């Protein structure tokens, strides 16, 4: 190895060391709130405060997660959240795929206007329509029910847009060849279009799951605390009803986040692609 090459390598190592240092510091900043929360969850509350809130657990109680799960009724809440989430995700996939297919492959009058009307729903977030939707639920008597939790979210302009973009990426030749082979629209949709947009569909399913599982405003508005809580409402409720046992609430919060964290670890690439759709062209 020449002296110059050696010098180049060692300067690269120092430069990398600097990069790693910065990365570690930033990772520490991002994870610090979670770490301290974990410390607080595991510590016996009064002893921890009396010890001056140190950055490590005091008088560790490992059963705090079990207690959050059992005492706080996190089990039924998780099941309720999961059922509602699966209904929403399934519904959104079906309605969005069908609508996207119509916009891409079918001819019908006023297509551009219909597409505009669909996309304009993005300007009508739940925060704006909340009062009207709660009134609808009141007249349908859908408070504290799965249909109430899910119905308003069974269609989405975002999903329709994303899946339409995916279908527009299918080469025209494939459609032409399938047509020559005698495939009708339903067969083409099932045998070609859906398999070909599987990556887009995968991203969409994950994003949709994330959104549905993490909902707060709507379940808070139309479910009664206790009787039909989703897990997100449950952990908030736990905190407000017993602030002194914040350690249990926070253990509950970590349990509530666990399914999504697992998804993120396994499907990071797909989630990121879904989240950044629209931010970057191509």
């Amino acid at each position, binding site marked *: 190895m020449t002296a110059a090459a050696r010098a180049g390598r060692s300067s690269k190592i120092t430069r990398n060391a600097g*990069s790693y240092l910065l990365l570690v510091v930033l990772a520490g900043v991002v994870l610090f709130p979670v770490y301290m929360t974990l410390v607080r969850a595991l510590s016996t509350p009064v002893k921890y405060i009396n010890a001056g809130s140190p950055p490590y657990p005091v008088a560790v109680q490992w059963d705090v997660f079990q207690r959050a799960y059992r005492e706080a009724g996190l089990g039924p809440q998780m099941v309720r959240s999961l059922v509602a989430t699966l209904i929403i995700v399934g519904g959104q996939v079906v309605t969005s795929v069908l609508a996207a297919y119509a916009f891409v492959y079918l001819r019908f009058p006023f297509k551009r206007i219909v597409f505009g009307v669909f996309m304009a729903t993005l300007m009508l977030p739940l925060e704006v329509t909340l009062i*009207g939707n709660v009134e609808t639920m009141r007249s349908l008597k859908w408070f504290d029910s799965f249909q109430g939790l899910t119905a308003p979210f069974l269609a989405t302009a*975002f999903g329709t847009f994303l899946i339409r973009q995916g279908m527009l990426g299918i080469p*025209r030749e494939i459609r032409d060849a399938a047509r020559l082979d005698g495939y009708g629209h339903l067969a083409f949709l099932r045998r070609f279009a859906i398999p070909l947009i599987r990556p887009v569909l995968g991203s969409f399913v994950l994003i949709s799951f994330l959104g549905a599982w993490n909902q707060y405003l709507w379940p*808070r508005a139309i479910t009664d605390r206790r009787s039909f809580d989703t897990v997100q409402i449950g952990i908030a409720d736990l905190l407000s009803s017993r*602030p002194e046992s914040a350690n249990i609430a926070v253990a509950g919060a970590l349990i509530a986040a666990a399914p999504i964290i697992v998804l993120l670890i396994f499907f990071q690439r797909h989630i990121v692609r879904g989240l950044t759709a629209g931010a970057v062209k191509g």
Partner: protein
Amino acid sequence: MSVADSVGTATAAPAEVTVDASEPVGGGRHRVKEGLLAAAFLLPSTVIFVTFFYRPFFKLFDYGLYRNNASGTNQRYVGITQYRQVLTSHDFTEGLANSGKYVLFTVPAGLVLGTLLAVTANRKLRGIKFFQTVFSSTVATSVAVASVIFYVLINPQVGVFQVDWLANPHLALFAVSLSSMWQNLGLSFVIVLAGLQAIPEEVLEAATLDGFGPVRRFLRVTLPLLSPVLMFLIVVLTVFAFQAFAQIDILTQGGPTAGDTETLVYKIFQMQSPGKIGAGSVLALGLFGVTLFVTLVQFLILDKRVHYGN
């Protein structure tokens, strides 16, 4: 409101490229059949959009004309008066001011921190994937989880840091916004990183050959090329800030003294009881108008300063 929906709000904004793969073949009967199929495919979404988006939205205009008694059994027509009263009321201006402050606290922070994380993690190093996962991890936390975490961190009585920010009328909203700043890190990072990775390497190499140092290259080349993505991020974060609700519901319930941390959405939430629907509907229309206005202004102002390539 979910991440996806809000991201979608900004997604739909770029100019629509009309590409259409439907075929101009077949005679009249064929076309009717195709039209019917299209109607069947569009029906499920249409039913949902009409029932849970358009109908409740247009209902707001109607509700706003009436004043109800507390149980909602008796309503009285008051007409446009209620619009004038509510939109000039202390409730509306206070909610708007708090929502505006929330935007000022969280949007610049999200831009700066997201860019810092993305630039740091956009390197070819061993183990970089691990750091990228850590930086994006807060996208997995819900608003409720983030709020519980910050409750435990900064609650005056039981928090890890027993600061009195949440109990201080002047600091409470900022303290609440800390949870959003942290929660937004993941999404901001992911979006800016995608933008950085879309910049062609040749462009950066060319800049280096032209004698640009790392700082000058970042300011003069990277940042302008990144501007459409940053603009997208500004819109997304602004929409998030205007929708802030769970943080306030969990951390302060609008307090410490009533109203201190009540954003527009928090006020709207409190007005769903039958007796307050009229005034609440006007507030909701106010929120709609304000977000529409802010989004449009962002596009008009920022669009001129944004570099879109070719």
